[in-house]
């Protein structure tokens, strides 16, 4: 009986072996050179301080990488295919390592020591090895074919490389497409030759019994035999195909660091080093650079440079981006690819088929001294289009943090004074009066006057809760009713709360994201000083943006607070019975604010409120942490929308209109403004009748306390509520969750 194994370098002359080792050495050197160039590029970046993040979650993150959770999230078929490609590749790679170890280490050392060649590549080990490699290889092949069909036939939006904003002189991304096909094609060719090789060997060996453990290789052998190939012919053909396979494999090794194949190394590091908290609370300007925003490659951290190479152009960010969706000249993918190409060009990187071409030297092709990253390489309009909604980073399967890079580039624009007039006015208002409306800071708490009851000044007397109201809830006359309603509800529920009155300033969350770091610091210092003068146990905010600033931005300035959103407080009051309501029975949908859901993971509280109010919640397809931005964040609310084809808020209202709901419930003051405008626009366009109302969740709570349909026009007086509460006792259907 034949020994259960297969010969290595079967029938090969020593000269052939020498050629193989020589080519292998050359391809390894080419790989090493490319990898070294990449490493050198990342070393140009400054420290990123990711040590703690990596250590804290190392095993969890390794597990996530191994199972590919970030790839399969929301894309199960793609995730499954990628899983088999990842593990098929790893198995093939490990198989090669094992064979190399057996051939070049074990046999060689044993010959030195014992005088004859020992090998572990036979018997049971061989059978298990063959079976695993053969089946995983086939799964790998099927997955690759699936990916090829997706890319070539189905062509989803995210895999099309049209730029969000096309340069005036035109551009071509055909090479990017060719590069993708080269990668796919190389892997496919390697796999196809591998199975051909296995089939030829099995046929040449005369179909030994143990070849059943290579089920797919044996199938190939049977097919070849069926086509009339003799074992002798198979042996001859094997020699030729062996060289084809070996050449392809070695070419692939050399190709890796110059192509998107490098993602298999770069993305492991990128996923281990990614740090969400660096988006929630942004990093400061580059220390010691002498300028507040990014201008040159050494301003970037190594992680930010690695981010650029990590991108596989999967286009998930491109698809979800509210700016891109609305027709703005920003796509997070374009941002990453443009920066990558420019950094590569400037730092001498080498890539194969990974470049956009343009007839003019603009954007990523900009050359020469005086090229500004913010403004020339990346268009200023693209940078100003970002709402910092963080959906890009949320869906990125490889841990790219787009938002901080955008803000660093915006800091450069602000430093140069390159901004639109409406934004400039808002910033000047914020600098002069601490609010974007440009109203006198002394009138910030004027809305309290019409309440009919006093609200304590937390600087004068101790309170349990400090209510950080925010600009919109304080100054926008359409939203002051919401604020008064909330005050009335809290008073009726016996909540002890107070305000900072005129000492409150805009918290600066979006000022920081605009890139006006100095103004953010000024506002934060003023707020921190005011909060230091106040006596309270806990803070709650109306505005999710304020919540984010107090919770995630102020700690870097030495001020940490216990801070909640008002929906969390209301949910608690409803569930504890402090607020007594009658069910409303409305069919509603709820819009998750980016800074509440995605940034701060407050997803349940508003839904608990709706449940307690007896409302039927119909979810929009994009909800929870996958919510779609209203378009106001990151300072966009202070800029004009002239670059947009469709406002994100209109896109969102269109989504809600496809559901059969009467109320569009929000939990952010800016959302009331944004979506009321969007509904008005839809109404003007004749796309909606009066059936969809945009309402802050506060107003629903108020209505449920008064009884359905009894929403007061202005602020609810506490007397109304207490009377209502008395009436409610033992009177009819009362809800106490």
């Amino acid at each position: 009986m034949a020994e259960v194994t297969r010969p290595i370098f079967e029938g090969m002359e020593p000269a052939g072996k020498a050629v193989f080792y020589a080519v292998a050495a050359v391809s390894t050197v080419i790989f090493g050179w490319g990898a070294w160039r990449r490493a050198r590029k990342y070393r140009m970046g400054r420290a990123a301080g990711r040590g703690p993040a990596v250590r804290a979650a190392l095993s969890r993150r390794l597990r996530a990488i191994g199972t590919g959770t970030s790839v399969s999230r929301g894309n199960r078929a793609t995730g499954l295919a990628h899983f088999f490609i990842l593990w098929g590749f790893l198995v093939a790679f490990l198989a090669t390592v094992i064979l190399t170890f057996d051939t070049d280490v074990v046999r060689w050392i044993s010959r030195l020591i014992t005088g004859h060649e020992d090998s572990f590549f036979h018997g049971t080990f061989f059978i298990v090895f063959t079976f695993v490699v053969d089946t995983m290889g086939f799964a790998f092949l099927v997955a690759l074919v699936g990916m090829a069909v997706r890319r070539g036939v189905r062509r989803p939006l995210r895999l099309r490389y049209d730029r969000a904003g096309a340069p005036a002189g035109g551009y071509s991304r055909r090479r990017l497409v060719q590069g993708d096909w080269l990668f796919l094609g190389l892997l496919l060719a390697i796999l196809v030759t591998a199975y051909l090789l296995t089939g030829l060997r099995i046929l040449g060996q005369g179909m030994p019994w143990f070849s059943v453990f290579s089920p797919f290789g044996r199938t190939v052998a049977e097919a070849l035999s069926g086509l009339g190939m003799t074992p002798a012919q198979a042996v001859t053909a094997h020699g030729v195909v062996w060289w084809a396979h070996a050449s392809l494999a070695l070419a692939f090794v050399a190709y890796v660091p110059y192509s998107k194949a490098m993602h298999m190394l770069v993305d492991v590091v990128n996923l281990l080093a990614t740090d969400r908290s660096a988006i929630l609370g942004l990093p400061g300007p580059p220390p010691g650079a002498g300028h507040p925003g990014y201008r040159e490659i050494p301003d970037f951290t190594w992680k930010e440079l690695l981010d650029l190479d990590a991108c596989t152009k999967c286009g998930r960010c491109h698809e979800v981006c509210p700016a891109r969706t609305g027709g703005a000249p920003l796509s997070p993918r374009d941002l990453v690819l443009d920066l990558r190409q420019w950094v590569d060009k400037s730092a001498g990187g080498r890539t194969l088929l990974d470049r956009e071409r343009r007839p003019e030297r603009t954007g990523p092709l900009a050359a020469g001294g005086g090229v500004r990253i913010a403004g020339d390489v990346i268009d200023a309009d693209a940078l100003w289009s970002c709402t910092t909604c963080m959906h890009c980073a949320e869906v990125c399967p490889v841990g790219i943090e787009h938002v901080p890079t955008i803000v660093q580039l915006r800091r450069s624009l602000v430093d140069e004074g390159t901004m639109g007039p409406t934004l400039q006015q808002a910033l000047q208002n914020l600098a002069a009066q601490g609010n974007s409306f440009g109203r006198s800071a002394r009138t910030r708490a004027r809305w309290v006057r019409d309440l009919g009851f006093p609200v304590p000044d937390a600087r004068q007397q101790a309170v349990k809760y400090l209510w950080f109201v925010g600009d919109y809830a304080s100054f926008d006359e359409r939203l002051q009713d919401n604020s008064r309603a909330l005050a009335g509800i809290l008073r009726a529920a016996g909540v002890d709360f107070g305000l900072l009155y005129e000492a409150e300033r805009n918290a600066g969350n979006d000022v920081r994201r605009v890139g006006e770091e100095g103004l953010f610091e000024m506002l934060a210092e003023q707020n921190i000083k005011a909060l230091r003068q106040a006596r309270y146990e806990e803070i709650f905010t109306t505005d999710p943006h304020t919540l984010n600033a107090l919770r995630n931005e102020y700690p870097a300035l030495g001020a940490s607070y216990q801070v909640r959103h008002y929906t969390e407080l209301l949910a608690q009051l409803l569930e504890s019975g402090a607020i007594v309501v009658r069910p409303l029975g409305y069919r509603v949908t709820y819009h998750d604010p980016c800074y509440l859901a995605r940034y701060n993971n407050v997803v349940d509280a508003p839904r608990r409120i709706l449940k307690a109010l007896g409302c039927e919640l119909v979810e929009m397809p994009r909800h929870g942490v996958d919510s779609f931005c209203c378009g106001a964040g990151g300072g966009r609310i202070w800029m004009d929308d002239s670059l947009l084809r469709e406002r994100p808020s209109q896109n969102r209202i269109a989504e809600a209109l496809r559901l059969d709901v009467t109320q569009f419930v929000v939990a952010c003051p800016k959302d009331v403004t944004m979506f009321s405008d969007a509904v008005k626009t839809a109404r003007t366009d004749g796309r909606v009748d009066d059936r969809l109302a945009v309402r802050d969740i506060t107003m629903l709570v108020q209505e449920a306390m008064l009884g359905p349909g009894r929403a007061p026009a202005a602020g609810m007086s506490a007397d109304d509520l207490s009377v209502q509460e008395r009436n409610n006792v033992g009177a009819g259907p009362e809800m106490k969750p």
Partner: protein
Amino acid sequence: MRIVVPIKAVPDLVEEIDLAADETGIDREYLTFVISEWDAQALEEALLLKDAGGAEVVAVGLADDPDIDQLLYTALAKGADAAVKLTGAGAAGPSGPSGTRTADRAALLAAYLDAQPADLVITGVQAADDLDGQLPSRLAALLDLPHVSVVIGVEVGGGSATVRQEFAGGRSHELQVQMPAVIGVQSARQAPRYAPITRIRQAMNAGGLSELAVPARAAGDGLVVRRVHRPEASGKAEMMTGSAGEVAGQIVGLLRARGLVKG
């Protein structure tokens, strides 16, 4: 070329402005002060001249103006080469509830410009509390220099300045004026630039603000404020009711009745 830009602090008009007890001015105690918007235009025009061909731009303010340090540091952050705060005997002037009188302001600035002459003095054509635009013309008279006001653009070359002066209805004409000269700017060629707070803070930390005592100088006659009046409501808004079509019809009728549209 040395360009001096006198700037002035005026109350931020978003504030609720109350009259002082004697009703000859406003209660300035709790007000926020900002740069007079025409002075911001003047500074921008001066900085544009600097950007175009090189000039030394000096922003000058009165120490008596509230929040003047902040405004001068902002000018430095925008690109002014120096900032001077005028103090000393007489600098205070008769600073009543309305601040320094324009006549006294002009006298102080003239004293400074006598000691440190400029090739061009560019300032706002008017201010919220100097609506008849006395400052540039008084300054020119005191310095015995040529003067152009309501200017919307300045270019410099060969010892003279070419300025555009604005008339109603978008018309303008071009004048040539021998330097040194005093120019009252209506608006700069572009909107005043933004001064990032970081740069203002850097300017503050660098302490580039110098103080200079100027000798008192006869101010000449100026206006005396006898009484300031509260705004009086002179009419009410008319609310239109009805459907969109009806309201549109009412608006068209109104516009026709007032001769604002023909036909």
